[in-house]
């Protein structure tokens, strides 16, 4: 039987563009990921069960709940995008815990995730993000599903540095990387991936 190896969405696109003085982008490869979509009328129950399973307080809102083992992102009414570590049983465990309350769909090979940081990150994000990312308005508790350069993205903030994370369908990774190079390249962009 073939031995399959996880390959991140940004793999093979090249490691480094510039100095990294302005913006540093680091691919987060190998994460387990799943969408959780509550069945009709079960959003509150699914949020409670999801939170109980992961030991987090999960709300049915565009908010982030995080622990060392998992990140839960509210992406729509009764819908969450959940990331785990490299535990191969993570998604199956979610599906078992949420049986009857929600559909759990494995996205581990579907989402490409970048962590973005750097002194000039805010001005680079301004070129593509049409929502208010002022620190007073968008905090590490918030999640936004929006578009950057016509690419649907899930955007959240990891810390106040600020470090942002961007998840998008992996087939768009090349297009997103193109936007990132155009928007952050002049400031000094470094990209780190496999």
């Amino acid at each position, binding site marked *: 039987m073939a031995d399959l190896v996880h390959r991140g969405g940004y793999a093979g696109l090249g490691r480094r563009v510039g100095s990294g003085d302005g913006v540093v982008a680091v691919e987060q490869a190998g994460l387990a990921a799943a969408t959780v979509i509550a069945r009709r009328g079960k959003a509150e129950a699914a949020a409670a069960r999801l939170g109980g399973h992961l030991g987090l307080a999960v709300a049915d809102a565009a908010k982030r709940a995080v622990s060392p083992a998992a990140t839960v992102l509210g992406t729509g*009414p009764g819908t969450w995008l959940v990331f785990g570590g490299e535990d191969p049983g993570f998604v199956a465990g979610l599906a078992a815990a949420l049986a009857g309350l929600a559909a759990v769909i494995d996205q581990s090979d579907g989402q490409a995730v970048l962590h973005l940081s750097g002194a000039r990150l805010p001005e680079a994000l301004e070129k593509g993000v049409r929502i208010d990312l002022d620190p007073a308005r968008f905090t590490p508790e918030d999640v936004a*599903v929006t578009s950057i350069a016509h690419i649907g993205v899930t955007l959240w903030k990891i810390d106040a540095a600020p470090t942002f994370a961007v998840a998008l369908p992996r087939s768009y990774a090349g297009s997103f990387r193109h936007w990132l190079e155009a928007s952050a390249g002049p400031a000094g962009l470094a990209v780190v991936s496999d």
Partner: protein
Amino acid sequence: MRIPCPYCGPRDSSEFAYLGDAAPRRPADGDAAAMATYVYLRDNPAGPMEELWYHAYGCRAWLVVRRDTRDHAVTGARLAAGREASA
């Protein structure tokens, strides 16, 4: 134009897809005249009206948005899900 999505917050209208008037309700099967009215006839008010918008680049929910057709002032939005039950 900015639409205040109840889940996502205020968002640019480019994130949304427009359907149209939120008022028509599908009639019972078998009533051809009522079905023709439902499918074809629309009011064209000059002023506030409720419309269905889909937040395609956001939370992927259908919204009922109240918009003034004269100046595009948006004065409210709510999730369309469950509106039959609450109407």
